């Protein structure tokens, strides 16, 4: 189909859907006027009921924790699919060590970059840990903190180069982090059932409001999510980097498409 025909088809489909979309948009509340009842109730009730200050964490890890568990496994499935597709082509024989591709020069890094990364890397990791631990009191949580932790490992790559990074970070550790985090989250749902409580019911003491240790089970779930996100995102980066090297089976794409 020619691009012009595709745009025409899109326009026709848009015209068909337009009345419905216009009706929905007209039915939306004016921007900034009111919030939905559900959100207003959560803001009113949850600080006392769950002893947490961060409502977003309370929704994600307590009120609608089952949804987040599903999301966690969606993340796990997407990363697993990525890894399987990329690693499957390279085969099992690929080594853990980084290899130099023949004919490709290694650009030397300036010492300022190395120093900056050595200083900023641990600090970034520390900040990521802070964000994870303060999930229930400040804007933060396992997802955000996990991404910051993963960027901390990427700073090691920037500073030390790929070979040094691969020496420090093993692929199967990342697998274990990713799967272990998801397992920890699933156990947070299953272990309360052993005590006769409902799935993912908060059986740990809720702690005091505005304290680091508040929210009970939410802290453990955040930790699981942070491990999974950190392992998963670092794993994605590793697999994409491995894809560029292709030392043993060089690929020449037949035709360059712009």
């Amino acid at each position, binding site marked *: 189909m020619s691009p012009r025909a595709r745009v025409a088809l899109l326009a026709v489909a848009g015209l068909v859907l337009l009345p419905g979309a216009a009706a929905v948009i007209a039915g939306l509340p004016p921007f900034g006027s009111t919030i*939905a009842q559900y*959100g207003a109730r959560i803001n009113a009730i949850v600080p006392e009921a769950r002893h947490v*200050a961060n409502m*977003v964490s309370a929704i994600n890890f307590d009120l*609608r924790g089952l949804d987040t568990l599903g*999301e966690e496994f969606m993340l796990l499935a997407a990363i697993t*699919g990525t890894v399987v597709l990329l690693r499957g082509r390279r085969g099992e024989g690929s080594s853990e060590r980084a290899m130099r591709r023949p004919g490709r020069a290694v650009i030397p890094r300036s010492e300022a970059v190395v120093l900056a990364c050595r200083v900023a890397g641990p600090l970034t990791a520390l900040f990521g840990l802070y964000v994870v631990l303060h999930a229930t009191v400040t804007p933060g949580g396992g997802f955000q903190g996990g991404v910051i932790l993963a960027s901390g490992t990427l700073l090691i790559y920037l500073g030390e180069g790929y070979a040094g990074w691969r020496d420090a970070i093993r692929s199967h550790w990342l697998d274990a982090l990713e799967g272990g985090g998801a397992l920890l989250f699933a156990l947070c749902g299953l272990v309360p059932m052993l005590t006769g409580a409902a799935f993912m019911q908060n059986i740990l003491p809720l702690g005091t409001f505005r304290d680091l240790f508040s929210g009970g089970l939410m802290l453990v779930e955040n930790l699981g999510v942070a491990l999974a996100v950190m392992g998963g995102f670092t794993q994605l980066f590793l697999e994409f980097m491995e894809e560029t090297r292709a030392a043993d089976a060089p690929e020449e*794409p037949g*035709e360059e*498409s712009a």
Partner: protein
Amino acid sequence: MSAVTSVLPYGVAAWLFGIGLYGIATSRNFIHLVGCLGVCQSATYVLLLGLGYRWGSIAPIFYDHPPGTPAVDPVMQALVLTDIVVGATLTALLLVLTIQAYKRGGSLDPEKLRPMRAGGKSGRDAGSGRVRDA
């Protein structure tokens, strides 16, 4: 507030979605297509955050402000968080599929890729004349 500010966030969301959809429909490159999908997705962030916003209220975190202070809708913020995380990993998965399509077909142009058949004709149809088996 005036009528313009009341409609503006929804207008921005609709514009982002529309322009992303146009990009997807006219795309001749898979990487461009994945990027356009990201633009479409950012429309959902704007829409959700616009739906949950309330003038003169704080983020739904009652640390500095006592509970009971007017706050925006926390449900929408939780949904956006979900959206971002799933979107990031899904983009990675789509880019991997792009790599696979490029390796099989030798092209990133969806027009040039033909359905793969058992006979291994796909490489020739794609114009590269290179047939590889997995």
